């Protein structure tokens, strides 16, 4: 019964994904076409002539009707061919395959930090609402939310990389090449990315736990003689799980987007840098490819979260 429900969720999500994918890529394609600037001018080189610019438009099909260009791209993308970068000729799939693990590593590490610190802090705050610990956690959370991650990133670089030399100031190492060095490179960007996440997780969990711990059900458990620890861990946290999962899912998706800034500060060759550079040069195939993959990732994350809901709370079908 439960398995059938899960399959329904998967089927429904996958069906929903298709129009989302088409809509998202169409909107981005349209925006890029509407934006001023012409990659043909860039491709024509620094000694550009009107004639050469015209030739380039012909050569790359940039003068074809807008819908034809989009349709052509979509048809290829649906067959797994994300085309080649106009700006540097690399296959878009290759660029993404190299960049995505760098971004994913930072986000996963940042999520681990956000949850690893945010959950205990949230529980600590909820254990004595309005007490000293609660106020302290609230203050820390406010600070975490208020500090922009690019600024924190620059502070971390100045302090821990340039001053002490404990961490690299820039760049990334592929996890498959050298896992330890890859983690070493990812720590500072992950910390910069995680600060807001720690605050968000702790605040949301605290609110959720306070509500659960003040419910009649918990009052009954206390009356039956259960210790505060058992109530908090076994009953409080379990009931707050669905809420926590929602927060974590949203946070993960948001962190994927926030890497654009953090990757720029640390010069990490990830998805953020890839799409920013491509957008600046009007390299449409790369922008479209990154959007395509990111939409797929977000849909997959949401699907995984939907499936986990059914595990955490079997009442959700």
């Amino acid at each position: 019964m439960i398995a059938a429900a899960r399959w329904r969720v998967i089927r429904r999500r996958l069906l929903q994904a298709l129009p989302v994918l088409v809509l998202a890529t169409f909107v981005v394609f349209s925006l890029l076409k509407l934006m001023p600037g012409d990659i043909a001018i860039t491709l024509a080189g620094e000694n550009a002539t009107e004639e050469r610019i015209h030739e380039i438009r012909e050569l790359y099909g940039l003068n074809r009707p807008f819908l034809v260009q989009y349709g052509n791209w979509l048809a290829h993308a649906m067959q797994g061919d994300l085309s080649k970068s106009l700006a540097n000729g690399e296959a878009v799939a290759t660029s993404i395959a190299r960049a995505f693990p760098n971004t994913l590593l930072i986000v996963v590490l940042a999520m681990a930090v956000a949850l690893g610190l945010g959950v205990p802090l949230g529980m600590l705050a909820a254990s004595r609402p309005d007490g000293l610990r609660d106020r302290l956690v609230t203050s820390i959370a406010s600070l975490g939310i208020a500090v922009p991650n690019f600024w924190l990133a620059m502070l971390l670089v100045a302090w821990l990389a340039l001053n002490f030399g404990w961490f690299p100031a820039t760049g990334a190492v592929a996890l498959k090449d050298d896992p330890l060095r890859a983690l070493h490179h990812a720590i500072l960007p992950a910390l910069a990315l995680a600060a807001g996440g720690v605050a968000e997780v702790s605040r949301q969990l605290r609110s959720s736990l306070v509500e659960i711990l003040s419910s009649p059900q918990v009052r009954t458990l206390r009356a039956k003689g259960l210790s505060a620890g058992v109530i908090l861990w076994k009953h409080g946290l379990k009931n707050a799980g669905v809420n926590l999962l929602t927060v974590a899912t949203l946070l993960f998706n948001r962190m994927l987007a926030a890497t654009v800034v953090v990757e720029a500060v640390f010069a990490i060759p990830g998805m953020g840098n890839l799409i920013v550079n491509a957008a600046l040069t009007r390299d449409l195939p790369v922008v479209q490819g990154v959007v395509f993959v990111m939409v797929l990732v977000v849909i997959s994350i949401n699907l995984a979260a939907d499936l986990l809901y059914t595990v955490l709370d079997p009442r959700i079908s």
Partner: protein
Amino acid sequence: MTNAHDAQAPQPSTAGLTRRDLMALAGAIPLGGTAWAQGAAPQRGGTLKVSANANPSSLDPATGGAGTDHSFLWTMFDTLVEWDYDTLKTRPGMAAFNFPDPRTMVLDIRPGILFHDGTPMDAAAVKFNFDRSRSDARSNIKADLQNVAQVDVTGPLQVTVKLARPDTALPAILSDRAGMMVSPKAVQALGNEHDRKPVGTGPWKFVSWSANEKIVVTRADKYWRQDRGFVDGIEFLIIPELATGLRAVVAGQNDFAYQVPPRLMPLIDKAKNLQKVTGPTLYCLQVYFNLAKKPLDILKVRQAINHALDRNSFVKASLAGVGEPAYMNLPKTHWAYDETLVKLYPHNIDLAKKLLAEAGFPNGIDLTVGSYTDQDSVRRSEIVGEQLRKAGIRLKYITGTIPEISGQFFGNEKKFDMLLSAWTGRPDPSMTYSLLYSKDAYFNAGRVDHGKALTDLLAESRVAERIEGRKLIFWQLQRNVMEQALVAPLAFQYELVAASQKVKGYKPNLLGKPKYEFVSLQG
């Protein structure tokens, strides 16, 4: 127009290359002189790590187009003709060259040069490259070779280039992309993939290119010259954000960052582990005019703008002194520099106001200006805006990315009256002046005809035989451009390099694009 020079017409210089002298010089000048290399003999070995500020457009010299590509290309490609680092005077590279008559150029290729795939760099290879550059649909350098009518192999190591019309800029053109020879075998085997797997004759050969991340080259064992190419390999880490690129050098991760903005100079000075290298370049910050737009079609308005600019203050405020005021499109050290133009537009607000009044704008004018969103451009916009405001020239800036704004200004949209941008320079001044001021030039935003005199001078600049003769023509050309106030040059931004102390032997060049052939790593 040239009277100002008559009294000081230059004497023939022993350093000045002439067309007739070129053959003799080809034998007399040691290929690859290292006169400037100082101190102990360069140490071989090590990997140079460079913070590169842009991903290349292509690693095939014929199909790429970005000015930032050269720094990568020169590691893998030698050129048929080379230039002097300080003046850009041409000299033999992989080939000696001479002009037996104005419409014929003969290239004598140095023996023993091999492409990285082991095939010989001979006359057939040079002809293949010429033909490809002139006719391939993907070639971006067709216009550079537009005066070439025919290329013949006249010996195993000799190529004769027939010209449709005289073109004394050709040696300089062959010191650029058009002179970088690719392996015919590699191009035939790889097709378009050669863009990403180049095979040349340079000191280093291609290893890998991860777009927007890294380019790696390694020593070419059979490189034809022993007096350059000292490091075993070079890794270019692509970091578009210039401050971040510098940070990688400060942190000791990379060894070398180039084209560092002057505002970051205090960081280099503060870092004890770094050395700073500066030198003049052709990179000219300037205000472009669209002469097809009113009121910039009025000479006095353009002259007023030129008089209202305080170039010395601009250099101090905008470039932290790492530059020189620009009075034309060539800097002081260039062989065709004309010092008499310095006095043409002295900073004079009263004169600027007077000129505006005479042009019919006693209450000043309002102009729209395209500019860019990066920090340095914003600072420059503020300075120029404030300087012109004092003369009653009120600017309204529209900002965006470089492709967006420059496309709108030079392309079909013809937006903005002016553009605050830069001209990156070319190896030969005739290229610069043709690309900027000929009637149909893309960078002539209004596509305005600037007169027969200028058109004739542009043509003459490619006909004159001796370099001293060319210099006189460029003096006239520059004076014509500046007397018509076709542009408002601001300043030449000097090259600013931050390198770790172990980097030795680097010298900036006038093109402002680093070459690493003499760089070594010590310690």
